[in-house]
């Protein structure tokens, strides 16, 4: 059974701080995605990474896919209260349309 473990589960930081969220598995994924979810809403796709070692940037968010395509990280620079939410990673095998989701990291950024 494929599993995706996220760490930390909870994170509370002050505005302006940096943080990193990790998504780890013993399985190889063809693609890995990051989502952000706000209370009362569905997850919203932030990014998809597909190549081992790939780095993508989305404003203050930096996403990296591990060389072996088993892990990923999300780094936020100078966090803002608007970054508050649940961050989820999800992996999929090659050509598959089934996804495995991590358990999530709940981030709170205090003003």
């Amino acid at each position, binding site marked *: 059974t494929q599993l995706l473990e996220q760490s930390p589960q909870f994170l509370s930081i002050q505005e302006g701080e940096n943080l990193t969220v990790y998504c780890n598995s013993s399985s190889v994924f*063809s*693609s890995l*995605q990051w989502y952000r979810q706000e209370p*009362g809403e569905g*997850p919203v*796709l932030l990014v998809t990474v597909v190549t081992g070692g790939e780095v993508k940037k989305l404003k203050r968010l930096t996403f990296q896919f591990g060389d072996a395509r088993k892990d990923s990280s999300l780094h936020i620079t100078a966090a803002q209260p608007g970054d508050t939410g649940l961050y989820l990673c999800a992996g999929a095998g*090659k050509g598959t*349309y*089934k996804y495995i*989701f991590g358990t999530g990291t709940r981030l709170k950024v205090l003003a």
Partner: protein
Amino acid sequence: DAGITQSPRHKVTETGTPVTLRCHQTENHRYMYWYRQDPGHGLRLIHYSYGVKDTDKGEVSDGYSVSRSKTEDFLLTLESATSSQTSVYFCAISKSGTGDSYEQYFGPGTRLTVT
């Protein structure tokens, strides 16, 4: 926005009653999914569909059935609701993304409480 709506958005029902949740999409996507979300478990796949009348089980399918008679609608039925099925249910579609990946887009969710 992938044009996904879910109904109802909130429902309270009693143990033992049947419940049907509806997911409707407007963009003619082939793949549709039902997930449940519970604290500490993230999103878990219940059932998915890869075309009209083509469905398959996910990791937590016991107690649930699905139907897809039209491309745009994917129904999730709890035959006899139990308290363990109290959860938030999300519908999703997927479409081609980067490389050969598929990217998922979610509906707003249905909060179901079974008393």
